[in-house]
């Protein structure tokens, strides 16, 4: 990734296009699941969403493999797509917006307290 790509995110656009091209080849049910996975994973994205790329790549790969095995979406993901997505990012140190807000809040409170001489 060169500097221009880092700043403009043009590499991301390219990867996104590649994902969407692969997703297009999926049957309807699997493609619907892909949309849900994306929607759920966005919650865990960092500012650019770059941290999600390997995770999305893996999830898409799983869908592709399951198509090749002739499995339906329900056999692959069950009823709990949000849970699946949480497990996908879990423990990977995927930093979420919520984590950052919490950290910011903690930092602000600590600073104010120290100013008060607490």
């Amino acid at each position, binding site marked *: 990734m060169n500097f221009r790509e880092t700043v403009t995110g043009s590499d991301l656009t390219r990867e996104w296009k590649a994902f969407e091209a692969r997703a297009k080849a999926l049957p309807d049910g699997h493609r619907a699941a892909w949309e849900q996975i994306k929607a759920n994973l966005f919650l865990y994205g960092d500012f650019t969403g770059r941290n999600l790329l390997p995770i999305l790549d*893996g999830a898409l*790969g*799983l869908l*592709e*493999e*399951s*198509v*090749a*095995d002739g*499995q339906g979406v*329900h*056999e*692959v*993901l*069950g009823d709990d797509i949000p849970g*699946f997505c949480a*497990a*996908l990012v*879990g*423990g*990977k140190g995927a930093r979420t917006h919520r984590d950052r807000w919490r950290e910011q809040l903690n930092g602000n409170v600590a600073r104010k307290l120290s100013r008060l001489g607490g």
Partner: protein
Amino acid sequence: MDDLTEMLKGTLEGCVLEIIAGEETYGYAITRRLNELGFADVVEGTVYTILLRLERNGLVQVTKRPSGVGPPRKFYALNDAGREELARFWAKWQYVSSRIDKLKEGGG
């Protein structure tokens, strides 16, 4: 048996390690094996997230192999750290199951 998944959650990782210890295998086959054992509501997505965790924790060796149809498959084999983890899992399982049996028999 329905609703086993909640109870299984803590042990599923050990089950997957044990299956991989038998022979190098891939996600779909592991899921099928668990289903055959009677864990009917385990789906491939669940196994996939466990495999990711095992990979992240350095317990498995992963090899990509072309499959007859579709994209290449990831095959998983245990490494030394994985075998140690599996031994720890069985020790813990032994402890838990012996305590619970004792409780059931009224020994306390």
